[in-house]
């Protein structure tokens, strides 16, 4: 094979690969949109399941939409409560080149790769150990475990890129590390916003972690100790129904979930050009 031919051949292969990959991703969006749009009704998003819901009669998925919302907001807040102190410790309190900081960053990279089914199983063992039932609270705690690495890594990446001049300046004014931390948070506000959006996107779409822990119910969760429905599980359960009307609702719910997640991702993109650590 001549050199030129080889170069041309591989270029064609590369273009083909890029087309296949982009094509399959576009196909997903197209499939979800075209199938979902017919099923999308006001009833679906505004009402609770009614009698005979699962054999195709009236009602909507408000239980799952609100349940997902509660879990997302709850776990993101709880996750921030833990991740913010950690990244401040890494970037403001610990010294440059600290061994502990390296270990912590490595651990978060590894935790990031642990699948949510494992967190789900772990959450379940804790739940059983504490004698709790599947509930909103257990779901929130488990999803928090899933998103802490996402929050911590994304915020850490932004803070590490903050120029050293910032802390030089605050320290020179006589600020303590705590006071410097507050300025750091302000400086990194857009990055923190991005981290929150990325984590929320994951929290709202994750099914495997809530499967064991949040349970499922047709009612709105009245308190933290009651079970809560979630959108991903609503899709999952209704898709396995043999009844076409019920399946259609799954498609509608899939479109809603996709739209929410894409909205999160797009706004995250708006707040930060590109965080490399959000995906790998």
């Amino acid at each position, binding site marked *: 094979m001549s050199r030129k031919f080889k170069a041309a051949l591989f270029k064609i292969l590369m273009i083909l690969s890029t087309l296949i990959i982009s094509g399959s991703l576009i196909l997903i969006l197209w499939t979800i949109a075209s199938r979902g749009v017919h099923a999308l009704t006001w009833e679906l998003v505004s009402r609770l399941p009614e009698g005979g819901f699962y054999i195709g009669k009236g009602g909507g998925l408000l239980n799952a939409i609100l349940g997902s919302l509660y879990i997302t907001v709850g776990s993101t807040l709880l996750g921030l409560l833990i991740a913010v102190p950690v990244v401040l410790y890494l970037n403001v309190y610990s010294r440059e080149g600290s061994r502990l900081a390296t270990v912590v960053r490595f*651990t978060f990279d590894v935790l990031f790769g642990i699948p949510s*089914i494992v967190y789900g199983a772990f959450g379940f063992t804790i739940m059983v150990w504490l004698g709790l039932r599947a509930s909103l609270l257990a779901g929130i705690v488990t999803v928090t475990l899933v998103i*802490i690495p996402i929050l911590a890594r994304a915020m850490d990446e932004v803070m590490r890129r903050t120029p050293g001049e910032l802390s030089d300046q605050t320290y020179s004014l006589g600020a303590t590390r705590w006071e410097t931390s507050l300025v750091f948070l302000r400086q990194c506000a857009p990055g923190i916003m991005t981290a929150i959006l990325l984590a929320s996107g994951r929290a709202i779409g994750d099914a495997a972690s809530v499967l064991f822990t949040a349970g499922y119910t047709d009612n709105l969760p009245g308190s933290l100790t009651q079970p809560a429905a979630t959108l991903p599980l609503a899709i999952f359960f209704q898709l396995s129904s043999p009844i076409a009307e019920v399946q259609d609702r799954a498609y509608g719910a899939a479109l809603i979930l996709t739209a929410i997640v894409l909205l999160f991702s797009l706004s995250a993109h708006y707040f930060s050009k590109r965080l490399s650590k959000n995906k790998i």
Partner: protein
Amino acid sequence: MTRVRLIKDRISGKLFLAFTLLSILLVVFVGIGLYGKSVPILRQSSLSHLLFSREWKPFKNRFGFLPYIAGSVLVTGLAILIALPLSLMTAVFISEYVPNRIKRLLVPFIDLLSGIPPVIYGVWGVLTIVPFIQDRIAPHFVEFSSGYSALAGGLVLAVMIFPLIISILLEVFGTVPQELRDASLSLGANQWETVYRVVLRKSAPGILAATVLAVSRALGETIAVLMVCGNQTAFPHSVLDPVYPLPALIANNYGDMMSIPLYDSALMLAALILFVIILLFNGLSRVVLYRLERRNNE
């Protein structure tokens, strides 16, 4: 006044350190928690028996994980086999050939899609991949297939891990110094030869790390695979057979597991196996990627 400030500073320091230590101990807690739950079944039969036995009869207290392990390996292997060459080609193309103008559109698009929840990939798989296999592929090889098969799982997983592999590879190719490319080009090599001899060769460890990370992502993926792979407990003999990967086993049976003795222990052992393997894979590939990053910074 100053005293109060200094005390606040010291307390916050201690508190933040405690949070940090606690959060990284999560790895240990997860390990211990799952191990504690797995102890009863490990007392009853040996680990090697559990891993290599094909017999899965919870009512008779027989728990052989081999069909599930085989299912996981098959689906993951298929996914990597499909995704790796395509992602590698695409990543090279984006990194080395595409003008910046298009790169700025393509990369965020791929990033965007990696945020789509697994359950959506699952729905897509049920709607397109499964019927496609049932109607177009399976009839050439077997009499009947529902389409819910290892191949369906592999295809859906492959699409899910495209963005992951491409993102890592783009980072990895970015660590290859531009001077090396320039040197190769100025010696008369054409662009493909430069890519092949310089960029890919220099990136070999990174490509390996990306593959290992993709494998561990694929091994742990639950819902999307569960929705399309058929979930039948049998040792698979072809890619058109239905399979039952480990995560699917855990997810599908959580409801019954409290009512059968040792069943919960068996499922938690399955989670522990996943956890340990993925922990190992992740750790190793991170070490490789750290090395590359450091090389880049020096």
